């Protein structure tokens, strides 16, 4: 499976570097290594979700307890979590770091992934959620640190979109 192990590790290290100690997730192909690394790390609490919206509540609870957290999900997971994002994170002003694999963009071969990706940025914009793309490994750590800083200072959700160029290595 040509998901980048090295860059998954870069993302994980950056996440841990900004203090994340709880991760909630549902798998998707591009996230398999990230989730496995989280599972292997005794310092990280990994919560396996049934549906992404739950993760918004779990992250709120962790924030109340003073623990930084992140959600790992795909475009459709983000779309699924919207009610929780509005009814918990935005309504109650709670920081939320969302890492969303950006399926459905240029290069997408799976027909079923091509729709959800079109709406991720417009929906983020409609909710006034600050977001940025993670494309190159060197940008991951600084962008993730800045995203976490903004989430904590603004008490708001923020999103980082994990791009194909970062997560996928085309087989040679």
């Amino acid at each position, binding site marked *: 499976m040509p998901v980048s192990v090295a860059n998954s590790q870069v993302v994980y290290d950056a996440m841990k570097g900004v203090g994340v*100690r*709880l991760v909630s997730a549902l798998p998707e192909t591009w996230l398999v290594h990230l989730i496995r690394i989280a599972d292997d790390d005794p310092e990280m*609490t990994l*919560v*396996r*979700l*049934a*549906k992404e*919206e*739950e*993760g*918004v*509540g*779990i*992250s*709120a*609870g*962790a*924030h*109340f*307890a*003073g*623990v930084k*957290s992140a959600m790992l999900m795909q475009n459709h997971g983000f779309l699924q979590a919207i*009610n*929780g994002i509005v*009814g*918990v994170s935005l*309504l*109650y*002003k*709670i920081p939320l770091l969302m890492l969303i694999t950006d399926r459905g963009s240029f290069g997408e071969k799976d027909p079923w992934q091509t729709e959800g990706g079109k709406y991720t940025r417009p929906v983020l914009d409609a909710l006034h959620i600050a977001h940025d793309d993670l494309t190159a490994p060197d940008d991951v750590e600084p962008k993730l640190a800045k995203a976490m800083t903004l989430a904590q200072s603004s008490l708001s959700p923020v999103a980082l979109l994990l791009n194909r160029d970062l997560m996928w290595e085309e087989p040679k």
Partner: protein
Amino acid sequence: MKRIDCLKAIYPELKDCAVVTIMGAVAAELYSLGHRANFFYLEHAMGLASSVGLGIALTQPDRKVVVIDGDGSVLMNLGGLTTMARSRPKNLVHLIFDNETLLSVGGGAPGGYKWFTTATATGSDLAGIAKAAGYPRSQLVRELEDFEEATLDAIKGDELSCIVAKVEAEMPKSFLMDIHMLENRFEFPRWLQAKGGVN
């Protein structure tokens, strides 16, 4: 059995617990007994009170967490029962008041008339669902003294517990809560994060 009587019965025991409630009647009635800094009322996002409780329970394993849920909310996040069960926090007690109706979002009416019931009215068994989801302990209670005994036992105990209490679909005397959501939102984590975490 009335919800308010159940809440009165356990109110003293909630003193040192992190308490997360759903919106509507449950929040208003708990508040009416006397607000405390360790009570968080999730006034929206039905279904996620248990998820918020899970987030607290996993990150503060030495703290007892009591989630006070309702049948309508639980039915909006049934998958959350499986997430709770597999995470299996020993320090969480999941109370579910089952009035078989979506009372607080307009499904109830004065006099306890149920015009918009939930599926528990037609036989869906939340205690059975929780048990089957993997809760190590789950029970259905219909009498006040059974509720009190089961809840106090669960709070003192050391395993994830679910108690489903069949209650009347009675409106609270008032839905008024003289605390802003954001005031509650900032007060609650201050209590949770205070040294020792006591009032």
